[in-house]
């Protein structure tokens, strides 16, 4: 029985082993994944297989008759998908047996992710599992492994702080907005400029229920296109200062060479709305908002550095929880390993 278990493997390349330029070369599209899974299953020694393919990882999980399968899988993957074999060999890993279980559990829990604790990977793992199952590529062992990994992921996330605190600029901004306004659904948002970070921040607010988003940019066409994308309205850039008193959250990411909002302008705005707070998110470099604006009563000004610092502190806090989460996952992996052996699943499959 224990001999049979030695044929469980994972071959992969992730952000730990390969920089983004190489990961771009290794990445497969959806059809490549389906084709490669089918190819693997046609190999006489492969009993089950599943591919996890995201922007940060390409991982091939499988169950084989023999542990001497590594070279064959590597060759097949590189040949079929036009990947440079020597590059892949130097920027990839191969794990077997209990290490595969521990690895799968850590990946699904977000412990192995670039943004520790992120939950998107769980959705991606579930998607990969559903696809492999649909194509009848998985069997008793991989089914059990992935279903258990989803359960273990929940335990690790709820029993430790690996998901605590936001780690992206957009979500940090949303958290801050909640601390200022409480329910942010009714807040009116003005997005100045069409920078990528600003757009993502607006999207983060939209995902939390904000539906009143206005976009203003020097190029009105850009503003109009982005407003359409965000389901909002476009505003002439020359007119934005006059309209500012009507907005609660202003995200600024223009390419202006200097400040577009100074203390006097903000004081004038606050005189018209002394009771309602104003949240200014300055994501531009050089900054769009004069830092002295922060001194104005009921105005909360955060720039890119402030938001990044909070995101990094939260990420560090999450990292401190990794060992605790790993212990929980080890116990899950060991239990799963014993179950697989006890039920002689590998022999049956």
């Amino acid at each position, binding site marked *: 029985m224990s001999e049979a278990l030695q044929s469980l493997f994972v071959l992969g390349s992730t952000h730990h082993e390969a920089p983004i330029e190489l990961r771009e070369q290794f990445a497969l599209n959806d059809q490549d994944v389906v084709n490669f899974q089918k190819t693997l299953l046609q190999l006489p020694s492969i009993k089950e297989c599943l591919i996890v393919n995201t922007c940060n990882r390409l991982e091939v999980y499988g169950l084989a008759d023999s542990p001497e399968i590594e070279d064959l899988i590597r060759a097949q993957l590189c040949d079929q998908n036009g990947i440079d074999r020597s590059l892949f060999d130097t920027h990839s890993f191969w794990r077997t047996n209990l290490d595969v279980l521990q690895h799968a559990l850590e990946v699904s829990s977000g412990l192995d992710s670039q943004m520790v604790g992120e939950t998107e990977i769980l959705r991606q793992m579930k998607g990969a599992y559903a696809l492999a199952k649909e194509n009848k590529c998985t069997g008793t062992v991989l089914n059990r492994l992935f279903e258990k990994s989803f359960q273990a992921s929940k335990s690790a996330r709820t029993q430790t702080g690996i998901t605590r605190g936001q780690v992206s600029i957009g979500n940090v901004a949303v958290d801050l907005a909640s601390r200022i306004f409480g329910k942010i659904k009714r807040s009116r948002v003005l997005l100045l400029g069409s920078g990528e970070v600003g757009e993502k921040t607006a999207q983060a607010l939209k995902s939390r229920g904000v539906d009143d988003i206005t976009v203003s940019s020097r190029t009105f066409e850009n503003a109009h296109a982005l407003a359409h994308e965000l389901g909002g309205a476009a505003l002439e850039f020359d007119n934005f200062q006059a309209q500012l008193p009507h907005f609660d959250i202003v995200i600024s990411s223009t390419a202006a060479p200097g400040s577009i909002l100074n203390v006097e302008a903000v004081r004038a705005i606050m005189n018209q709305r002394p009771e309602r707070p104003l949240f200014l998110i300055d994501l531009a470099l050089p900054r769009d908002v004069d830092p002295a604006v922060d001194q104005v*009563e009921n105005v909360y000004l955060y720039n890119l550095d402030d938001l990044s610092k909070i995101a990094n502190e939260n990420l560090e806090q999450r990292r401190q929880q990794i060992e605790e989460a790993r212990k929980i996952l080890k116990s899950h992996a060991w239990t799963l390993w014993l179950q697989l052996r006890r039920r002689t699943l590998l022999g049956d499959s």
Partner: protein
Amino acid sequence: MHILLIAWEAFPISDRGAIGIGASFYLVAFLVGMLTLREKKPAINSLIFVLLGAGFLMQFFGLNIRGAQIKACPLGNTFEITQFITWSLVMLFFIIGPVFRVRLLGFFTAGLAALLSGGSLIFPGLDSPYPPGLFGGNPWIELHAALAIFSYGVFAIVALVSAMFLIQQHGLKTKQFKGVYQILPSVQQLDTIAQRLNITGVVMLSLALIFGAVFWVGNPELVPFFKLTVTCLVWAGYLTVAFLRIQKKLVTRRHAIAAIILFLLALASLWPVQSARNSDATAIRPSSHSLAQ
């Protein structure tokens, strides 16, 4: 009331003893909240709620024993008034907490209740004896006293909410993102609640003064001038703050600071007001009796 008396007969305890146990419950609730905050664990709201409830009942029990002993509403000295304000504060928490869903309000209420209730127990001088029948059985003055004390309870909650506002605002202005700042309600929510409660408190205190005035008109010699002046000053202070707030001239941070300062002044005025009232009451006792008759 009947149940409380039966409980008292079964477990004889002094009024100050029951109030002391109540204050201990408040202190434990505050410490539990503090511990959960320090350990960065989710606040045990239900436990704090239960501890506050236990403290509230014990304090109520103690005040009832005191009331049964003097055969009147126990509002005759600074100790009793402070206990009644604390009791009103906790009762208001039970009303406001679930309605506005203000996170951490229970923790802050427990802290202030422990401070006020425990503090007034520590200084025996505040529980000075006073002549019986201080209110002369007049329903107007009893209504005046009850409403005035209740409004002070409202102002206590306003001060707490304002303190929470200042902490959250400080966190936002100094870019603090951890600990208590993450759990406190939003500045806008706290500001709105403080404004609404302040207006409620002003309305109640105004009603208390109107009922008090009915009594005062008939018995001007029974109302010490010092008490009248201080009470009117406190009322005028809160009225001004509420008016300026409605006019949007005293908002957010300055409104919060004003609410805290006014509450501290109102509290600080209790002892001299009571001293003046008791000395005047002792001096005019015979005429007071004749009036009552």
